[in-house]
């Protein structure tokens, strides 16, 4: 069965959706992601939807579900790269994606995730370690 790959990068899970999804594929992604969060103890999930040409009510609901489920599992979700035409259509459809954090692109999404889970502190500590005099 087809699956969307989930990449792990430190505390984060990255998902880039490169194909147009049919419903079963989206449902698989939802359950795979929640299980990955539990298995890896990831604190953040970044979903790149820049290659998605449409998001309908079903896909919108899945995105919302992933956000809520991850939240319960103590992980933040950020959705990045939504195309302008998709945003226009979503609002006209009546789907506001309330409760889902979004960012314009992957870079800004990563920044947002880091600030959400406060992992900046960890990075700073590491830096201090490096510069500690011998």
């Amino acid at each position: 069965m087809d699956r969307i790959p989930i990449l792990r990068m430190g505390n984060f899970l990255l998902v880039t959706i490169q194909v147009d999804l049919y419903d079963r594929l989206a449902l698989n992604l939802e359950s795979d992601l929640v299980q990955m969060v539990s298995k890896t103890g990831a604190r953040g999930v970044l979903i790149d939807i820049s290659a998605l040409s449409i998001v309908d009510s079903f896909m919108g609901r899945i995105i919302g579900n992933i956000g809520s489920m991850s939240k319960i599992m103590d992980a933040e979700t950020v959705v990045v790269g939504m195309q302008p035409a998709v945003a226009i259509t979503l609002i006209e459809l009546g789907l506001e994606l309330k409760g889902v954090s979004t960012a314009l692109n992957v870079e800004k999404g990563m920044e947002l995730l880091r600030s959400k889970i406060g992992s900046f502190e960890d990075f700073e500590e590491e830096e201090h370690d490096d510069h500690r005099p011998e």
Partner: protein
Amino acid sequence: MIIVLSKDTLVIQKEQDVVPFRNRIKEYAVKIGMGLVNQTKLITAASELVRNMLRYGGGGTTIIEVVSKGRENGIRLTFQDKGPGIKDIQQAMKDGFSTGKSLGLGLPGARRLVNEFDIKSVVGKGTTVIVTKWKNG
């Protein structure tokens, strides 16, 4: 007066048929020069309607037509199933109403995304939805 310029019929029986169906609509929309936003609206509406057809009607037949009215070109889509039909269409067209476990945005949302929307349903016989999106609509 509406003139049909081309007609294409696709049978939808399983979820995997949906993506090729959406792509076919996209091809026709591009061919008549429909803008990206209108294309996206049309395909999203089609995605909602075809899902309803699969979920409640057990699949069915779709027709993609390129139509022309005066100087305006557009795409007309027909979704025809032989499912149980809809008892109360007015209720089904309301935001947030669903007999399934969905958000209830499918039918009312699809209506907002297209220019013309027509639904006919006979209980025990099936449901037919016809929508039209004009190129500059």
